[in-house]
């Protein structure tokens, strides 16, 4: 088991390398650069910036397109590149490889590099600021999802086709189909502005986390409820449940001891990707409740073509997904003794 976990942890790194490489290539290939700013900067400044962020590599320029080094204006550069497209392409690939190596080296040292957009801040600063917020929010949402979802699903399964079941499943349907940008404002209206129980926005105390956590967790709670119900109903049909009843066990033991483990397997499998999604932040919920989490960085980074920030968010999300899946596999193994670790 420990060996299995260690092996899986080691296995995460090659996957991360693939994710890193893939998102790097996407970022490079996508048209437009971070310094194609609305208001043009003087060519010298732009060139120095590009050198600093390794968008230019003097060695590559000298090797493939020496004329570039003398170029001053974007128009001149464009004309030059059009004149010798193959050399231009080679120069780009060469520069890209250098940049790739540079960023990879930084990542290995845990340094996500400088933000392209906010030139006085590092990507690490953004993540350090946003990640705890997103983690708290995600953790609360997972707690809601599990707390509400498991109980509702269990009740629905035990009272199959009777009113508690119908009630729970209607609630679940609502939870899945009502979008967060509707649910959030409704919760604010009722609980903040109406009942004055919770603050409507900002991020200062635990009570600020409650409504966004509930909003974010509601759809997941609904899924968990449906999966729990389905899983339980599946297990309850099994022969060994009939055996448990034939043994004269009280219904409480039949459900909680004999049926629950098997019934939870689908929920646990679902929790891996669900937790990864929750821990990467939600732009909608963050906007509604004015929460300074990771979600908005992701969107901002993409809009601003802030390559380093966007890549860092992607890689951090990948880490979450991989770790969540590892945790899920371990929990599945604990729940189901037939699972073999190899």
């Amino acid at each position, binding site marked *: 088991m420990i060996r299995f976990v260690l092996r899986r942890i080691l296995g995460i790194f090659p996957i991360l390398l693939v994710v890193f490489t893939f998102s790097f290539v996407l970022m490079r290939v996508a048209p437009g650069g971070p310094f194609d700013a609305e208001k043009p900067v003087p060519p010298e400044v732009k060139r120095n910036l590009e050198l600093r962020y390794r968008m230019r590599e003097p060695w590559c320029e000298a090797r493939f397109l020496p004329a570039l080094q003398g170029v001053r204006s974007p128009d001149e550069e464009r004309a030059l590149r059009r004149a010798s497209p193959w050399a231009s392409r080679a120069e780009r690939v060469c520069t890209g490889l250098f940049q790739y190596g540079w960023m990879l080296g930084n990542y290995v040292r845990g340094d996500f590099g400088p933000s392209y957009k906010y030139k006085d801040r590092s990507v690490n600063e953004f993540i350090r600021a946003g990640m705890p917020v997103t983690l708290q929010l995600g953790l609360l949402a997972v707690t809601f999802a599990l707390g509400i979802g498991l109980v509702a699903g269990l009740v629905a399964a035990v009272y199959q086709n009777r009113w508690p079941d119908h009630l729970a499943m209607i609630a679940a349907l609502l939870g899945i189909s009502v979008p967060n940008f509707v649910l959030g404002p409704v919760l604010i209206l009722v609980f903040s502005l109406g009942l004055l129980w919770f603050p409507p926005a900002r991020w200062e105390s635990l009570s600020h986390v409650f409504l966004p956590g509930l909003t974010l967790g509601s759809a997941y709670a609904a899924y968990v409820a449906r999966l729990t119900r389905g899983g339980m109903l599946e297990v309850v049909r*099994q*022969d*060994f449940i*009939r*055996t*448990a*009843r*034939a*043994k*004269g*066990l*009280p219904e409480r*033991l039949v459900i909680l*001891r*004999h049926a629950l*483990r*098997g019934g939870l397997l689908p929920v646990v499998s679902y929790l891996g990707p669900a937790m990864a999604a929750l821990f990467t932040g939600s732009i909608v919920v963050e906007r509604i409740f004015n929460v300074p989490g990771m979600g908005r960085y992701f969107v901002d980074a993409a809009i601003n073509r802030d390559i380093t920030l966007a890549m860092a968010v992607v890689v951090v999300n990948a880490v979450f997904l991989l770790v969540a899946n590892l945790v899920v596999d371990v929990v599945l193994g604990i*729940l*189901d*003794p*037939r699972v073999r670790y190899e």
Partner: protein
Amino acid sequence: MSELLLQVRNLHVHYPVDGGVSRAVDGVSLDVRRGETLAVVGESGSGKSQTMYGVLGLVPRPPGRVFGDGAYFEGEDLLRASERRLRGIRGNRIAMIFQDPMTALNPFLTVERQLTEVLEVHKGLRRKEARNLAIEMLAKVGIPDPERRIDQYPHQFSGGMRQRVMIAMALLCRPSLLVADEPTTALDVTIQAQILELLRATRREMDGSIILITHDLGVVAGNADRIAVMYAGRVVEKGPSREIFESPLHPYTRGLLASVPRLDAEQKAPLVPIPGQPPDPSRLPSGCPFRPRCPAATARCAQEYPPTRSAGPEREVACWVA
């Protein structure tokens, strides 16, 4: 102390189905005496299992419906007993083992957990005491190295060993009635013989009764004192084992006997399966339900269900022509 341990009278188990009702059990009467083995025999779907589920309160209700004139176990009518009372009897006074030990044991729990909980619930034992008794019982049913194996999960046991675990689980509370529902159907032939031998030894030792449910008359021979033959939710013939084998009365019983290889006697006639299929219990034919497959059917058989009549000191049969 009455000689009869279990007396089932006119038991019905019905399930609602589209546009009607499925009569899984349609008026079954059975007697089980103390210390005897009663074999309940019939093709798949004839209602053997459902009869026992009806007696033990294991029919899912809803949708199922169970009613009848009574199911008296040690003088108490189980059809009218509370669920709580039934729970106290199930696994304790009446224990059941099932066809497929692969699926009848919980794959998520250790054998220890599944054995000890029976003693905890029925005898109020603490886990430690229960564990010691469970180890003893595992040894008794022939599981080697029980101290170690008790902490394993069912998938770590072979099919035959699993059925032994099931039997150990059933015997923990020393039940006076053991219901073995096709206990050997899922096992290899050699393992079958071992499990049957274990059941025989068990009955000698526990001095209780066994209901042996099977569709295989080969399993019945040498293992049962009396036989009840079921067809389409009813008992069509009843009698001492030897008499049924030697002079079957009902055409269905004769058909069954002709279709199984005999273990105890030389094969006289070639094996012939009964033609056709058993009826769907929600669409029974008029009159005798065996009539469409019966070689001896007459016009009368299509009109009226044959009443059960006595055919000798201990024999009953429900047939117009027998």
